[in-house]
């Protein structure tokens, strides 16, 4: 070295963690009976709800069907899709019903011009940039709000580069094609595929993989802006990631971006036919927890496994065995002439 005393490099900015900073306690919701009630007016009708109720619950109580995409009872609200926005008197912007708590005296409109415009545009934004073909929910909303996604032009075709996008950089186009998230499907394991060309970035899978259910943290949102995407670290394939194949992300995905390989293959082959499918509830045979499984069956074959979100044991979550460990049921064993060949 040049004899100069080794200094802290300029960019290694001095950090001086004086005290470790603890997080606050998790706030608890008092039991319903001790909660005050608040009165809110929804589309002209006054209703009372317990304090702490979200506007979404309140609008539902008032008989309004408020659309949601990123909201799920079992997950912490992230309020990112904004489809649930409602008009709150006195507020400059619209407010997300799914996370905003009802307060005494609030006056809410759930179907005003502004609300409808926002919902319609949000649907148009999504459907013009994302393949929503396997999301019945979004397709019904599109109809309900008379959305015309094609008015933004023909969507761009699939691009390979989304995983490598650098924050804050994009290629400016002449606008003749509508930017889209279309990209090749990630098929890197035998259990489920990730088709992020269908991803609306609702954060549900990230939440299910993280603190809201699985605590595995295999996936997170990476990148920024339009290039934001669900990714493992450095976009490594799932087998190299922390994923334990619980499939809880699949369970919450509203668009079919995350899909069982069985379903993906059948759709590709054109044999997926919901009219020939039935669902059967059973109990997972593997361990003593006794999770409820909902088996989706087509032509006597299990094509998908879910668990009811309202189930008190699972809240919709399973482990790899319950979710995927059913192949044995379908092995055609010629030596075993069992009557339930299901």
């Amino acid at each position, binding site marked *: 070295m040049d004899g100069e005393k080794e200094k802290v*490099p*300029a*960019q*290694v*900015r*001095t950090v*001086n*963690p004086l*005290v*470790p*900073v*603890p997080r*606050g306690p998790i706030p608890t919701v008092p039991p319903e009976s001790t909660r005050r009630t608040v009165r809110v007016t929804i589309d002209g009708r006054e209703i009372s709800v317990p304090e702490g109720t979200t506007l979404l619950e309140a609008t539902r109580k008032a008989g309004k069907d408020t659309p949601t995409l990123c909201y799920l009872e079992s997950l912490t609200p992230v309020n*990112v*899709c*904004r489809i649930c*926005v409602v008009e709150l008197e006195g507020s400059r*912007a*619209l407010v*997300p019903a799914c996370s905003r708590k009802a307060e005494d005296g609030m006056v809410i409109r759930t179907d005003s011009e*502004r609300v409808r415009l*926002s919902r319609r*545009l949000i649907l148009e*934004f*999504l459907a*013009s940039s994302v393949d929503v073909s396997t999301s019945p929910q979004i397709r019904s909303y599109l109809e309900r709000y008379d959305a015309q996604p094609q*008015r*933004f032009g023909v969507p761009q075709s699939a691009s390979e580069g989304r995983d490598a996008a*650098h*924050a*804050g*950089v994009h290629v*400016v*186009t*002449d*606008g*003749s094609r*509508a*930017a889209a998230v279309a990209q090749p499907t990630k098929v890197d394991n035998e259990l489920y595929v990730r088709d992020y060309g269908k991803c*609306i*970035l609702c954060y549900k899978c990230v939440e299910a993989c993280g603190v809201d259910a699985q605590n*595995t*943290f*295999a996936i*997170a*949102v*990476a*990148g*920024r*802006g*339009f*290039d*934001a995407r669900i*990714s*493992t*670290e*450095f976009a*490594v394939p799932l087998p190299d*990631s*922390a994923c334990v194949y619980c499939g809880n992300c699949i369970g919450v995905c509203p668009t079919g971006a995350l899909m069982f390989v069985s379903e993906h293959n059948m759709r590709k082959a054109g044999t997926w036919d919901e009219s020939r499918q039935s669902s059967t509830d059973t109990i997972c045979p593997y361990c003593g927890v006794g999770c409820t499984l909902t088996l989706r069956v087509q032509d006597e074959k299990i094509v998908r496994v879910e668990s009811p979100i309202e189930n008190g044991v699972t809240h919709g979550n399973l482990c790899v065995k319950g979710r995927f460990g059913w192949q044995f049921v379908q092995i055609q064993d010629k030596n075993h002439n069992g009557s339930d060949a299901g």
Partner: protein
Amino acid sequence: MDAHYTKQHSSAAEKQAVDSVLGAPDSGWKGGTRSPERDGHSAVNGHARGSERHLLLPVLHAIQARLGWISPGALNYACQRLDVPPAEAYGVASFYGLFSVTPRPPCVLHVCDDIACMTRGGEELCGKLESQLGPPGSASLAGKVTWLRSPCLGLCERAPAALMSRAGEKPAEKVVAPASSGSLVSTLQSFAVATIKEPPDHFEASVSAPQLTHGDNSNLMLLRRIGRIDPASLDDYRAHGGYDALRRALDRGGSWVVREVSASRLVGRGGAAFPTGKKWDPSNKPRYLVCNADESEPGTFKDRVVMEADPFSVVEAMTIAGTALGCERAYLYVRGEYPLAGERLSHAITAARERGYLGNNILGRGVDFDIEIRHGAGAYICGEETALFNSIEGLRGEPRNKPPFPTQAGLFGKPTVINNVETLINLLLIVQEGGERYAALGTKGSTGPKLFCLSGHIRQPGVYEVPFGTTLRELIGLGGGVSGSGRLKAILLGGAAGSFLSPDELDTPLTFEGTRAVGASLGSGVVMLFDDTVDLRKILFRIAAFFRDESCGQCVPCRLGTVRQEESLQRLHHGGPIESVDVELSMLKEVGQVMRDASICGLGQTASSAVESALRRWQLF
């Protein structure tokens, strides 16, 4: 959580980079050597584990500075040390423009192609660089260097501006402004191989705050020390009235300070124009004070000038605020692209701490207060207060939904007061003069002095201090009048998130209420001039591109609205509107309204403001 790390092993350099922030690992659990006696029967769990997440951003800076990119091996080791899942750390690293998660040459030249630089040859500069160094992002000069286009670097008074950074054992940064293509490439060549560390920039008061060289400048208050003191000398600062205000504040007590701030009717200078007195409600028991020095609004550079030339004033003002509000701890979040401001503030904090102006028992008065610096990493959105909290906490810089407001649940979930640099330095005046006298300056609705950032086609660009109520015309007069063709076409007020005014609105008084009356806002104090040779459409394209690049991507209205807005403008320009120009314009309007109505934060809510204000005033398409 059972931590799963990637398979990559970490090299010595990768470990060094992380350890330079965290110190050596204390056990095998944290990536150190395993020692059965020490590690065999114990593990750190619970609160202590994961409580260091807030060091992720500083660690990423150290990795980027040492290696030139965030490599898998380094990230993996950082994750082990901090107990952060690699997918989440990658999500954070890939959020910031100054970090690269793919290999990149060690020396990077960021060239501003934003709107103020566009009026002073920024685009031509980029064109020339492209012919000399290849397209942005490509490696050149034997693989040592790459160059990138950058949004506003906050150096608009010295446009066109560039910033270079060098990674390695002796990392460094250097500002070149104004930049010309010839000198830029030769500076870059020598910078890429330099081994000694020079100051990253030189501050010149006559350039950045030209008012100081005008005849009568005795009435300046906020700028009074700029260029007159040695920014590295605490003694010099004190000789010019420094730390008198802190003494007075400590003498009078915290509740007196809070009352005076209320009486002063001080309004926040960060852009949202929120009354500081309301924010400063001691009954909230704020735990943290945060100084927002992330200044990234295109056209804004006032905070930089203050931090570079009078850094102790920021430290003193924070100390007054923190001690008055009863916060023990403050964070100063400085824009990553401000190397000189960062260095000078670090130095000022250290010097103040050594002399008893910070730390335990400040000035022997039995109060404790300290300041920690955090550096941004290239994300405009991190100036939004709640995104800034997330950034400090080691999360992605995504804004939070409000409520709860920072005063209820801010940094680390605790009640927090966050103020802009300029807001805070006004405290020095308020404490010295008293709130009532302070409020006598300016207008009824906008009290006190205000800093404006004049740039674009103005003879003497720079930071100007005037009392609120000065008209736009008077301010332009102070700056020597319109340059370029000399014929003014448009004024952008408030930055990219602000609005355009036309020359017949020059008598608008520069106050919160006066600008509101013409449908504009003061924003962060940007006043950018465009002469009649400027193609305003190109300015709109750049603004639209800026918002698309800087959207955090969290919410649909903004993530996609900014994209559709840019596409629509491009179609109008390239003569290919969908259906007709009218249909296209009405679509643009709808996109704007949804961004305003349904976005989570101010970025999306204002992303259409400048575009709409221009389309209202001129028929551009």
